[in-house]
């Protein structure tokens, strides 16, 4: 009869007295983890867009009109045997003309065209788009001339090179932002919880004085740290949910419609946003409990 009431009032009084500290800790966790989550979505989406653009890098190998069937077959077999090759599509002279006509419908250029000047080609997509230059070089001999049967190899040389350096930079910057944000979050949460324990050091002192066991002293603070971290991260997940539901998802829709990007945080099939939510909750709880444990070491020796 007596004890539950004691503990209830104890918890209530403790919460009332420490309300400001607890409130500070919870809002700190909520805001910092919300920002981390927001950037996680952003960086993931940017990475998705980049990957999708990189995936679109392909190689067009134009064939001479007078190429023999054997040589053509030989080239096709050769291309298929490379491990870099993702897929290969043959576009005949007729198909090329058809495509050209479609693309230039109603234009004067069609009237002036005589016969079919367009070459047949192989369109190659690569498993690793960054190997595009390496693959292109295989169609050349030592002197830099195209091998027999090949008229030209096109892959947007300078454009591809620039794309890869830009994507590398963006990827690094995104990762850097996340790391810096995470570090800032850890430091902020740790400091806030340390302050809230500092504010109660007198209580700890008295507990130790009357012989409370170390775990008895530690337990409520660890619990409180976990509670603050978990509650704060729950708030940030709720905020992030509404942000993604009403704002981020619209942006992603535009990206999907215009760029055909498949791998996005919210709209993607991987349900990455769920993992981000879960990660934030786990991170919040863990940071709370670990911060408390570290901060307590000053007051409670093991």
């Amino acid at each position, binding site marked *: 009869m*007596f004890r539950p009431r004691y503990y209830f009032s104890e918890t209530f009084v403790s919460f009332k*007295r420490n309300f400001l500290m607890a409130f500070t800790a919870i809002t700190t966790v909520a805001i910092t983890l919300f920002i981390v989550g927001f950037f996680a979505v952003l960086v993931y989406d940017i990475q998705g867009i980049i990957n999708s653009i990189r995936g679109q890098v392909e190689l067009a190998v134009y064939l001479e009109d007078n190429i023999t069937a054997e040589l053509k077959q030989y080239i096709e077999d050769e291309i298929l045997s490379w491990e870099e090759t993702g897929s290969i599509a043959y576009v005949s002279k007729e198909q090329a003309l058809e495509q050209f006509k479609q693309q230039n419908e109603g234009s004067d250029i069609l009237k002036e065209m005589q016969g079919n000047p367009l070459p047949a080609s192989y369109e190659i997509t690569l498993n690793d788009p960054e190997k595009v230059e390496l693959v292109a070089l295989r169609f050349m001999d030592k002197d830099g001339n195209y091998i027999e049967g090949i008229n030209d190899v096109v892959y947007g040389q300078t454009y591809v090179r620039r794309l890869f350096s830009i994507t590398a930079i963006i990827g690094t910057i995104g990762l850097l932002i996340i790391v810096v944000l995470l570090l800032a979050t850890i430091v902020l949460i740790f400091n806030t919880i340390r302050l809230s324990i500092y504010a109660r050091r007198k209580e700890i002192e008295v507990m130790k*004085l*009357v012989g*409370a066991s170390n775990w008895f002293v530690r337990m409520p603070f660890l619990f409180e740290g976990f509670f603050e971290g978990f509650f704060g991260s729950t708030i940030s997940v709720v905020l992030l949910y509404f942000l993604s539901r009403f704002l981020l998802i619209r942006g992603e829709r535009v990206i999907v419609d215009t760029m055909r990007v498949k791998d996005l945080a919210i709209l993607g099939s991987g349900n990455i946003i769920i993992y981000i939510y879960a990660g934030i909750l786990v991170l919040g709880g863990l940071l709370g409990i670990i911060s408390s444990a570290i901060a307590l070491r000053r007051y409670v020796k093991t």
Partner: protein
Amino acid sequence: MKMIEFKNVSKIYENDTAALKNISLSIEKGEFLFMVGPSGSGKSTFIKLLIKEIEETSGSIFIAGRNICNLKNSRIPQLRRNIGCVFQDFKLLPNKTAFENVAFALEVIGRPGYEVKVQVPQVLKLVGLHNRERSYPHQLSGGEQQRISIARAFVNRPPILLADEPTGNLDPATSEGIMKILSRINLIGTTVVMATHDRSIVNSMRRRVVELEEGEIIRDQKRGVYGD
């Protein structure tokens, strides 16, 4: 039976100041001992060593025949449950009533509720504050607060009670009341060690006096006075 025994104990703080120099002293069970000397003579260090708030630099300390020097950290709480402590600044929790402050000492060592319900009013009666159990520390006088802190120190009946300048913040009349309570606790068989530099109290009690000066015992008298 020796309750407390110091054998060649020295304590040198990190800044190289020697607080205690090669102290040997034994205190019998049920004894009442005054530890006197000017500030910085080592009185507080003596008390902190007993509750293992600090570690001795050399020597050994025995409590009830047990060497506490190589006590594991996890065993320290057990040691402290057997030593009640009273300080000059009371160390009461301001958000708890007199009753709750005393009950807290039992709660944190896991005593059951019915025991708390019986023990706390008993010990509050012993210190003469059974009618103030609902008051908060700020509603009590200094003397009353100190009596609450004695009640808290004594509520689980430890065999040893340490008091570090318990009357340091109190006027002579109030101090006298505190001394009466400590005497009463001592009469029940509790070993009491009190550090003080209150001349009139020591002189009026006529108990054993150990005088420290710069970390050394310069006097140990059975029924002593404060000194010249």
